[in-house]
């Protein structure tokens, strides 16, 4: 018999445990730091730690903000593709943060998820750049990679941004404890502010 009692899971970020060999577990201190920043700056009652989810786990559906990062290959099985697409279509949000080398495989896989929705560059006027903190020049650049500027790509489902792909920015590194990468405080702060913007956008636009 099914229980009629619904658990009310605490709001948090889901770290996507994907296949393909990439280090999905990278930047371990990043999400706790981001969650702390969200809690302190927005008052949203978020958990202290992220929740590790796979695309086949039931926890996915209680996670409005799915975060994936890594340096390596990403692969979604056919079942994963369907689940991820459904998850995003019904209001979920995926933030893919290229942490070094994920670009090629992520673009390939997300094109499999949404062959009919291309990754497009998110315009400066989008709320993710202004919701809580202002980023008039777009996504901040935290780590220098190939001398290329940071870019934020996205997939829009209707007028909702369902997938955000931070490229050449390394937000996750910026969220980490400052002594991990020894980033200047300004960059650490910029990364957290961008993360707060993203999370706030997600929880305020989830349909």
């Amino acid at each position, binding site marked *: 018999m099914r229980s009629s009692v*619904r658990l009310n899971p605490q709001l948090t970020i889901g770290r996507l445990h994907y296949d393909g060999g990439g280090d999905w577990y990278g930047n371990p201190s990043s999400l706790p730091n981001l969650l702390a920043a969200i809690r302190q700056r927005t008052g949203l009652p978020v958990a202290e730690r992220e929740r590790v989810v796979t695309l086949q786990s*039931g926890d996915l*559906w209680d996670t*409005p903000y799915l975060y994936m990062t890594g340096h390596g290959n990403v692969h979604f099985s056919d079942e994963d593709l369907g689940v991820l697409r*459904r998850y995003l*279509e*019904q*209001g*979920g949000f995926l933030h893919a943060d290229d942490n*070094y*080398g994920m*670009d*090629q495989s992520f673009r*390939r896989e997300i094109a499999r998820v949404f*062959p009919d929705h*291309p990754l*497009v*560059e*998110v*315009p*400066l*006027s989008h709320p993710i*750049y*202004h919701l809580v903190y*202002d980023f*008039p*020049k*777009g996504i*901040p*650049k*935290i*780590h*220098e*990679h*190939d*001398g*290329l*500027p*940071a*870019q*934020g790509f996205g997939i*829009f*489902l*209707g*007028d909702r941004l369902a997938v955000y792909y931070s490229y*050449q920015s*390394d937000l996750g*590194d910026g969220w980490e404890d400052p002594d991990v*990468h*020894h*980033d*200047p405080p300004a*960059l650490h702060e910029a990364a957290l502010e961008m993360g707060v913007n993203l999370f706030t956008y997600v929880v305020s636009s*989830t*349909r």
Partner: protein
Amino acid sequence: MTETRRALRQLGRPHAGARAAAVLLAGAGAALGVAALGVRLAPHVTAVVAAWLGIAAVSAVAFRFARRAARSASALPLARAAEAAAGARSGSVATLLAAPRAEGASAALFAVADRSAASIVTRVAPAVRRVLARTTSGSVALGALLALLGGTAFVAAAPGAGRAEGFWRPWRIIALARAPLRLAVDRSRVRRGEAVTATVSVPGGAGGHVTLWTRGPGEPWRPAVVSLDSTGSGARRLGPLDSDVWVRATSGSRHSEVLRVAVALPAFIADVAVVARFPAYLERADEPIALGPVSDTVSLPVGTVLDASGTASVPLSAAAWRPVTGGAGTALSVAGSRFSGRFAPTHSGVWRIVIGTVDGQPLEGEPPVLALRLVADSAPVVTVPVPGGDTTLPFSLVQPLVIDVRDDHRVARLALESWRVSQTGKVGAVVRESLDVRDAGDRAIVQGSLDAQRRGLLPGDTIRLRVVAWDNAPTPHEGRSPEYALRLPSREELRAAQRAAAADIVAAAESVSAAQRSLADRTGDLAQERARGTSDPSSGRQPPPGQTGALPFQASERAQEIARQQEAVGERVRELAKAVDELARAAKAAGIDDTAFQARLREVQEMLGRAMTPELEQRLRDLQAALARLDPDATREALRRLAEAQQELRETLERSEELFRRAAVEGQLASLAQDAEALRGDQAAWNRESARRPDSSAAAAERDLAARADSLAQGIAQAERDLAATRHGADSSGALAEPRAQARRAQGAMQQAAAGAERADASGAEAAGAEALQHLDSLPQELRERRDSVAGQWRQEALDALDRAMAETADLAERQRRVTQELESGGSPSAARTQQAEIEEGTAAVERQVRDAAGRHALVSPGLQSALGFAQRQMRSAREQLEQAQPNSDGAAQLAGEALDALNATAYAMAQSRADVAGARSGSGFQEAVEKLAQLAGQQQGLNRDAMGLMPMPGMGADGMLQQLRALAARQRALAEQLERLQATGGSGAAGPLAQEARDLARQLDAGRLDRQTIERQQRLYRRLLDAGRTLTGPEPDPDMERTSRSAQGDSVHLPGLLAPGVTAGPRIRYPTWRELQDLTPEQRRLVLEYFRILNAPK
């Protein structure tokens, strides 16, 4: 009277009186007691009356008992007492009290008896007296006691007090008792919730009670007892009253009149509503504002009107908004108990609604107040995050801008203002460009650019810019950003940057060519592997059972990788084209307006623009689709076709690389010539002005010129190296040795001049300066001549190569004709086969020459290679027909004939290409093609105009219309033919599809179909003709580059563009939301979403 009676009377008389007095005393005491009671109860009417009645009764009884007491000491009782005391016979004394009345009685006898009895009485008199005394004294004592008690009580009742007045005047009390009750209330009209005091006065009712009766409307009377005080008054508090109340008092049969206490409603304001109606331009909905005795400060935009209305509980005489600090207010209209009106506050402050009632009744409570803060509409706030500060214009002279503008209501207009400030400080006119901020709301982030190329700026000039924004107020407020200065680089800086950029582009072009070459090879290899693996039965490799036709995983991965890399190369090609475009514009801005160089850059850009042909992109898509379907046959075919297209791309890239390399050298030389020109001018100026006044500053200036001469020499040396790197460039490598040497000599002379100036040696400085000028004098011209010479040499190379190829093609065609004739006439197949093989080999050699020539000149049509390739394929097929065990001479003859046609066509096209190359003004021919396209666009525009004119042509007959349309169709067809010719000569790769579209349009017009759709197609064709050759942009990093990580430094900014229309177009039917699905099981969610997906699936 008898003696006896007399004796007895004497004996009893004192006692009779004493006894009567005792009774009277007792009666008096009793009467006094009653009187005391009456006094005490006075002015109680009943008590008083009863008391007096009691006194009367007591008095009567006392008198009666007094007589009776007196009789107890009369003759008869004494006679009997004497008889008893004397022991005589009863009646012996008593009978002698009166003379006998009977007839015949002896009087004497009676007298004797009388005396005898009298003697007895006398004898027993003491005894009787004692008995009598005893009783009498007792009675007297008792009477005295009672009298004393009564008197005491009477005295104690204070008969002299005021209260006793009623007792002493009972008739008055009785008269008052019959008078009516007096009832009064302190107020006959009270407010709800208040109380009244009812006072009852009862004349003569002191100390009594009355009943006070009250009732409300529709209620029964309710009694309440009110005690009266000594004055006969009593009071009772009634309330708090909610409604009218009626009061009366009763006391016995007496009653008062009925009084009504009316409860008046309190005067207060109710239902007060204040609605803020904002100025229309704010487009804000009306908002209610809460009022109260204590109001929070409400902020309102200036111009807001307050619409107030309300109802009072009483009729009103006036209402108005008034400032609490005093001063004039704004009257509101009053109707009955309602008030309403508009109020437009003009200043901040606390305002109160002041109400006057008709009856003057003050209002309950505090009147409502409204604390207002009028907020003036603020001007827009404008910032320009990019560039965000003063800066130097980029090499392209196009400064990207990001403008962030905010307003408290709405941004209505935005304009970029810029003006030139010359080196001398002269300020130019302000140029204002409007920026689109429609539907921006209260904030807009606008991306734009400031193109400084069109401003006619001179080196050293500064562009100053600011952004001005206006809001949507009726009198718009203006906000301005800070001013930013954009410094224009000097021409030397621009030229140096242009040369560096050209070098970068050369390197990038090399990299792209190499990548494409590698990719084409890998694609070819994979296509061949696939072909061998599936079609070569001799390989002996059979697919595993059950997997026939399956696409091997590794092959699939490699094919996917190829597709991805091809896309990446495509992006790089487009990037390259953009870079060339920017270089061309930057060079122009730098003053390098050398038309040949600009034309060469346009050629390269054209070539790169069309390198990624629609065919290649289509084949790439085919491959991706085949991979997605895991279809091995389709994948194989797509790979093969992609490999062919890649080959074409590779050749195009190689050609463009070489052409750009040459263009870059031309540009370098032109740039260096201008540097030399500028240097010469500066040296001449130094000679004129500074050499005659040699000092340290003159020396420093001359040293700067020497450094520029050194830089010029180095630039010429670099151009030498770059020239040598071009194909066949080694032949011209020595052409720049002399200019370089001249620059060095000029540098040496300048150093000497500087030294002379330092020594204050005017003559030495002048001489050395003159020498430097002499060395520089011819240098610019020499550099230009070298550039012309190199360009002419390259053109001649192309012509020579074409001449050779043309001669050889003509020879090959002649030989092919003979082979064809032999085969048609039934000649020896083996001999024909040998000859065909030789011609085939010769054709391949010609193709190589053509490719070589094409790499030197853009007007050498790429179509030549295609035609030669076709000829080769036909020759190969013909040869294969002859190599069979049973040679097929007829088939071979047909194929050989087709090869002959191809060779003839090639020879013709070569002749045309040669003429094009020889006559090309630009030295490469693309400029002519572009001009031709522009000319055709003009023709198309005329066609469009005429077609539009035909659309609404009332009155024209059907025949006339058809005739007009046919004329249009003929012109459209002619345009299509010109496009086809342009395509045939290889002038423009875009000409083919355009020609096809023109043909289709001609057919439409021929058929008499001129509708809106046809007009739109014509318009599109016109635009495509204008846009032919434009390039796309899209930065993409090199995926093969090794990546390193470090904290970001500097301000590496990439500004995303706007979203393409339609990107955010939603599904036809909205999907269920997260919340809507939250209570479903995962399986239910899946089913629901699947259902919606089917609904939204494209039909």
